[in-house]
């Protein structure tokens, strides 16, 4: 265990014990236990004392022990909390959002298996010509489109293989090398906001909104987030071009992948297209996106296009991570912990826009240093209780703050530790952290401002 992890272990255990020993006014017994779990989880996640997906399972396990009818605490005769069956907590592992993401993972991994991602890249990059600045925009656009449906990390890794030959042919002092290396993770993170399956923080937010009775259709999310993704992509492109003006005007792109035409590959193309179509038209046919998500899983596995080995290699730990975040939100809400935590601040005095600014800024800052999913998991339960306290209005307010948190979490890209795509770009050795810090900070701040502008001018008109 590293020193940091050991500090986290000690602080986490202390955090767990404090609510058990102390009595907080106005907080039920269940709320105290929920606080123990919240503090333990927050610290373990922040210090990565144990792997973050392991903390997620620990959350679920602790909730079962301390907050369920099958647990060790007897709540009969105590007011303020009605314990649920333990199935409520382990059920998060099969939450509809988890199933949606499972479908997305199968599509993404199958696309990688049949080189569909590489071939799509080659086709989509073709119209962008040879000039350095337009190629950069092309790379960013393709990265964003792919990362909206695949994991940001896999998309970045694939695009890095595309740019390594490009960069190798450039002069070693050419600033465009830095610009091109940075444009990939930035575009991947930005593209991830465009669809519900683009990145895990979206999952935690949507699931939390569902908890409150608010459903967000696949196409509706895209309507809210896609314009922002497009604008931010152009902003990031311009920021990088200005900070790192290319020394050479021409760049040659040589992608030699061949479109696979085997039966399995063709089935994948068809399945991918149909699934995305069904997702985006949810408003028309009414079939929930989680149900549609099972379609590619069934089709690709029954045809053996996606094999047992492929199933085993799916990123199951990300599903656990999401489930833990969802579960934490459940107990924070129904034990009254979340409202107790936010009750200390006079939120009623703040205008609703100020509430959004606070949550947006805190999310952006935290997720630069923490996993984006963990940041969203810790903040969304607190944000949603503000609705009941009146600082935000009803379902509209919930949706607004949910979007602010989800989108701001993805705009956190100032350091290699901020997101895995950033780390991959830094490993190429082509850029220094200070380059990432500067452009990432500028883009993050612009992103936050745009999110808030959308909250005032765009979303109220289309929700």
């Amino acid at each position: 265990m590293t020193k940091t992890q050991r500090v986290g272990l000690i602080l986490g255990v202390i955090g767990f014990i404090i609510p058990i020993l102390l009595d907080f006014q106005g907080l039920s017994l269940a709320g105290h236990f929920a606080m123990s779990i919240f503090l333990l989880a927050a610290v373990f996640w922040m210090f990565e004392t144990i792997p973050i997906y392991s903390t997620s399972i620990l959350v679920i396990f602790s909730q079962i022990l301390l907050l369920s009818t099958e647990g060790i605490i007897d709540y009969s005769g105590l007011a303020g909390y009605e314990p649920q069956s333990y199935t409520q907590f382990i059920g998060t592992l099969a939450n509809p959002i988890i199933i949606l993401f499972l479908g997305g993972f199968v599509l993404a991994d199958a696309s990688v298996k049949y080189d569909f991602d590489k071939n799509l890249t080659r086709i989509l990059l073709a119209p962008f010509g040879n000039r350095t600045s337009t190629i950069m925009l092309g790379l960013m656009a393709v990265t964003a489109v792919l990362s909206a449906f695949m994991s940001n990390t896999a998309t970045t890794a694939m695009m890095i293989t595309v740019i390594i030959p490009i960069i190798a042919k450039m002069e070693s002092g050419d600033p465009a090398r830095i610009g091109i290396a940075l444009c990939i993770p930035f575009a991947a993170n930005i593209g991830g906001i465009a669809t519900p399956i683009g990145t895990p923080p979206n999952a935690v937010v949507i699931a939390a909104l569902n908890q409150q009775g608010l459903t967000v259709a696949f196409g509706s999310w895209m309507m809210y987030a896609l314009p922002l993704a497009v604008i931010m992509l152009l902003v990031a492109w311009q920021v990088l071009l200005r900070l790192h003006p290319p020394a050479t005007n021409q760049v040659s792109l040589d992608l030699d992948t061949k479109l696979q035409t085997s039966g399995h590959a063709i089935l994948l193309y068809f399945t991918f297209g149909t699934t995305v179509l069904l997702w985006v038209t949810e408003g028309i046919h009414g079939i929930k996106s989680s149900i549609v998500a099972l379609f590619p899983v069934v089709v690709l596995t029954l045809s053996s296009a996606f094999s047992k080995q492929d199933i085993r290699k799916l990123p199951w730990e990300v599903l656990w991570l999401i489930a833990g975040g969802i579960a934490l939100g459940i107990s924070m809400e129904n034990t009254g912990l979340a409202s107790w935590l936010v009750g200390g601040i006079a939120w009623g005095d703040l205008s609703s826009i100020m509430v959004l600014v606070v949550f947006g800024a805190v999310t952006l800052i935290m997720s630069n240093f923490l996993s984006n999913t963990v940041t969203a998991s810790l903040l969304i339960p607190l944000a949603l209780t503000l609705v009941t306290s009146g600082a935000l209005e009803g379902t509209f307010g919930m949706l607004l703050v949910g979007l602010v948190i989800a989108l701001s979490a993805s705009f956190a890209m100032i350091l290699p530790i901020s997101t895995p795509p950033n780390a991959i770009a830094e490993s190429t050795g082509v850029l220094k952290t200070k380059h990432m810090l500067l452009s990432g900070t500028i883009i993050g701040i612009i992103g936050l401002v745009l999110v808030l502008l959308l909250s005032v001018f765009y979303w109220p008109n289309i929700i």
Partner: protein
Amino acid sequence: MKHRIYIFVVEDEPEVLDAIVRDLEEFEDSFFIEMADSAEEARELISAITDDGHEIGLILCDHVLPGENGVELLVEMQHNPSTERTRKVLITGQAGLDETVRAVNEANLSHYIAKPWEKAELVGTARKLLTDYVLEQTENPMEFMSVLDGERIADFIRKGKSITDN
């Protein structure tokens, strides 16, 4: 203590040893380079390294050495679990066909570099074999992306085998 990966060079002529190590200097930041001038010294150093929990990723070995010869050393390393996965290269002008066949069949020889060697061949071979080793044996090959074959490592990550979104 952090787990280290070593490149090991066994060569009895000092000028040749220096030349090999100099050609490998671009790998110095990420890998430890250790040297020996005989098979016996090599065996001791290798034991010390693996006993400390580190790994030998690549060994470049001359064949004609004082005492035991290079092919014998490589065969022995192949039979030792802690050096079985080490990528083994003969760098020599004087191994006959029989010994070379033995190295291929019983030491899982990865590459044969004939002396005098071209720096490009040596560096290219080292890069390829170290990339093979790192992709096979390490949890997080990403840290080697700038020194080894970046495209292969990035493609490995793309296939989801080490890091994912979080």
